[in-house]
């Protein structure tokens, strides 16, 4: 018997128009934490779906413990000892933890035994979880524990984790890593999918890097610098954003005691948020998803109105103004959801340029639209932000995530905002595009604009922001200078969900 658990040989999977995986060969050793590293669209998901039996390869073969392995469906994969924690959880809010876990098992034990087993596993691996709690009331980190415990109850030989840390606070990440290391020491192999280089260097023994469906290299991440890994992943070298020292100017946007009720049942109410932001300043707002990020953006963009006196731009009360009136005084926004909020999927880039550029770029006069000017504006965005598309007549949804995000950010930046608010500006964007977007935000601040960056990516906030605050259940307790702030302090500010261990 070899010391390899799973080996993949020449796995290829093509979809119409794109080869998702092209002749991918590597092996995962027993008790090894193996990273699968790649940009969005590099083929990581397709590859793990093949291992988990969700997708069948066009060609190539797999062996598990030296036996041929061709899972026809996930159930077969689970029976062979392969378990997977997905990025998006599949849990029922209205049911308890134990009920949710029972639903995912082939032959669930009696409820009382199951609850006992859940307690046992959660204690063994340091994952505190009450089996009788309703899932709806759990934090993202706790939900992930439900998924992990569901997998662990099946004693997997290989645990696949797809971008597990994207929803966690730093403290929760530490707990997760501790669990994974413990699993590793017990001989469980882990296939860890991520694009966060520091995590991979800290946790993983081996890394396989995918680019455009092909394997680039298998290496030991601890021996490489984050920069080398990034360049292997992207294929080219790219400039890291450069920050300059900036002098802060006058207060441009002043938010005082902003409280807005949630617009729907699943929304978060904003509570008593106050800050001032000056010209040339970048304000970073962190926090775990679902703590009011979207609500804060729409309150600033004017999609939801705020009571009078709470939002002032250059001293002018704009709380009751709509989006276009706010644009005219220089407050621009770029929401998180690219398709369907920041841009209309089926409309062309020209039409999407018209969407928010109408007033400030003079694309409308007397209610009449000037399409040739809008086309010029769209082409200007495409050219200055290196948006890869055949032309401005193409539909927004035909662009890749990174390109559309560059378009969306570029559309606002090129309107010379006084205040720009962006939510998750580089979410799901490849490293090169993310660097370009961050650079654009820094440049904008250098030119004297105030920039508010709402993001769940702490590295991003640390890289570009001057001051930091964290959203927690719709509140921001305080803003502190970013310089000198430790990851632990940031985690505590984020509400410390999961630190009650």
């Amino acid at each position: 018997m070899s010391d390899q658990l799973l080996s993949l040989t020449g796995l290829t999977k093509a979809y119409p128009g794109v080869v998702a995986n092209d002749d991918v060969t590597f092996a995962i050793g027993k008790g090894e934490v193996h990273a699968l590293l790649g940009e969005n669209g590099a083929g990581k998901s397709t590859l793990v779906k093949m291992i988990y039996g969700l997708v069948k390869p066009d060609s190539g073969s797999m062996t598990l413990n030296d036996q041929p392995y061709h899972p026809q469906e996930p159930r077969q994969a689970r029976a062979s000892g392969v378990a997977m924690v997905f990025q998006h959880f599949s849990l029922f809010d209205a049911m308890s933890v134990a009920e949710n876990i029972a639903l995912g098992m082939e032959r669930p034990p009696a409820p009382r035994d199951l609850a006992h087993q859940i307690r046992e596993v959660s204690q063994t691996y340091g994952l505190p979880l009450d089996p009788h709690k309703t899932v709806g009331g759990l934090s993202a980190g706790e939900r992930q524990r439900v998924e992990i415990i569901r997998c662990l109850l099946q004693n997997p030989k290989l645990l696949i984790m797809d971008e597990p840390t994207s929803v966690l606070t730093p403290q929760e990440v530490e707990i997760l890593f501790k669990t994974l290391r413990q699993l590793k020491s017990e001989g469980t192999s882990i296939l860890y999918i991520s694009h966060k280089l520091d995590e991979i260097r800290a946790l993983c023994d081996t890394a396989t890097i995918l680019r455009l469906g092909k394997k680039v290299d298998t290496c030991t991440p601890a021996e490489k610098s984050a920069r080398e890994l990034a360049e292997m992943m992207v294929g080219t070298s790219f400039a890291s954003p450069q920050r300059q020292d900036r002098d802060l100017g006058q207060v441009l946007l002043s938010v005082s005691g902003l409280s807005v009720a949630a617009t729907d049942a699943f929304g978060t109410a904003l509570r008593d948020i106050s800050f001032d932001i000056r010209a040339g300043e970048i304000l970073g707002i962190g926090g775990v998803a679902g703590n009011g990020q979207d609500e804060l953006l729409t309150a600033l963009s004017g999609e939801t109105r705020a009571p009078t006196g709470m939002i002032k731009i250059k001293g002018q009360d704009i709380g009751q103004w709509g989006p276009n009136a706010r644009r005219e005084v220089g407050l621009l926004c770029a929401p998180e959801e690219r398709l369907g909020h920041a841009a209309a999927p089926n409309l062309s880039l020209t039409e999407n340029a018209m969407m928010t550029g109408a007033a400030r770029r003079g694309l409308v006069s007397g209610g009449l639209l000037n399409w040739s000017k809008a086309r010029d504006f769209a082409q200007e965005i495409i050219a200055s932000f290196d948006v890869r598309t055949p032309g401005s007549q193409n539909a927004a949804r035909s662009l890749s995530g990174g390109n559309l995000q560059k378009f969306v950010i570029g559309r606002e930046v090129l309107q010379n905002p006084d205040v720009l608010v962006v939510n998750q500006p580089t979410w799901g964007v490849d490293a090169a595009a993310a660097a370009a977007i961050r650079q654009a935000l820094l440049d904008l601040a250098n030119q004297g604009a105030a920039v508010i960056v709402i993001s769940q990516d702490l590295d991003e906030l640390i890289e570009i922001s001057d001051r930091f605050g964290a959203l927690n259940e719709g509140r921001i307790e305080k803003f502190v200078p970013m310089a000198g702030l430790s990851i632990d302090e940031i985690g505590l500010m984020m509400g410390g969900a999961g630190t009650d261990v």
Partner: protein
Amino acid sequence: MIRLEKRKQTSRFWTYVTPILAVVLTMIFGGVLFAILGKDPVLAIKTIFWDPVFGEFAFYYRPEVLKKAAPLILIAIGLSYGFKAGIWNIGAEGQYIIGAICAAGVALAFYPMEGRWFIFPLMIVAGVLGGMIWAMVPALLRVYFKTNEILVSLMLVYVADVLIKAFSIGLMRNPDGHGFPGSRNLNDYSSAANLELIAGTGLHWGVIAAMGVVVASYAILARHQFGFHVRLTGESPRAAGFAGVNANRLIMVCFLISGGLAGVAGMFEVSGPAAQILGSFPSAYGFTAIIVAFLGRLNPIGILLAGLLLALTYVGGGAAETAMNIPSATIQIFQGMLLFVLLSVDVLTNYRLRWAAKAGGV
């Protein structure tokens, strides 16, 4: 096995081809239907679609097609705004009826005073306002109470239907009509009559209005901010909100436009081809216009063509009824089938068909 695969972009080619494909398929299915009824399918299709325009009696049928197309186009253009924005006014028939009642009310109030220069325009205004008021009911209920505009607008059709029956035997009954139901004949009242402007052409003010609305609507959708906001709302309501579109105001404006145009269509009909308020006045134009709007791809030029085609099915259907003894309900089946087939083949605009041995997971 056939598999559907989403296109990256909406296919321009199929956007224009599917309506034609739908018409052809409907003719084939219709032919099968006629064959089952024991009629010669080719002759039936020819009688309905060919003879009214190119046959021996085309001089009689062509003006009829135009007269029937005018209200269909007017109403369908109005509906197209809401439909584009995802606002479903299904009750154009009711707005059409109320427009007719209001316009006839103005005419009858002034009867027998002479003064076409102000009575006829006033009737137009009354028709528009009548339709708008009827359309505002579902619009306001939707905006302020989040009711479903489909249900409310549809229900109001039946209220309007009862109202016109009541008016025809009550308030508006012709005092010189020997007790028969129905109002005075407006074609006989020169200040209110909407007659052919050039005899034998079918061209009345409603036709001119329909053509004007087609042109204006084309300009608004292509060039005006309102048209853009309508499309944006239909494509993505959240993106529209982000772009500064006030969703509630848009709902009301779309209902006002569709109600106003349906109302004015009722005005031209009651003062022209129908000639009077009568229980049998409702002719389902308001429902057929929904088919016209979709068959015309919610595009003004498309609606113009679709309106003419659907008018042809009315006229040709009538001809087939007399000439070939085909039941009159057949033509309604035909129209329904057309919408059904159109919506089915519409899949092709956003998806492509793939023949695959077996679909893998995605």
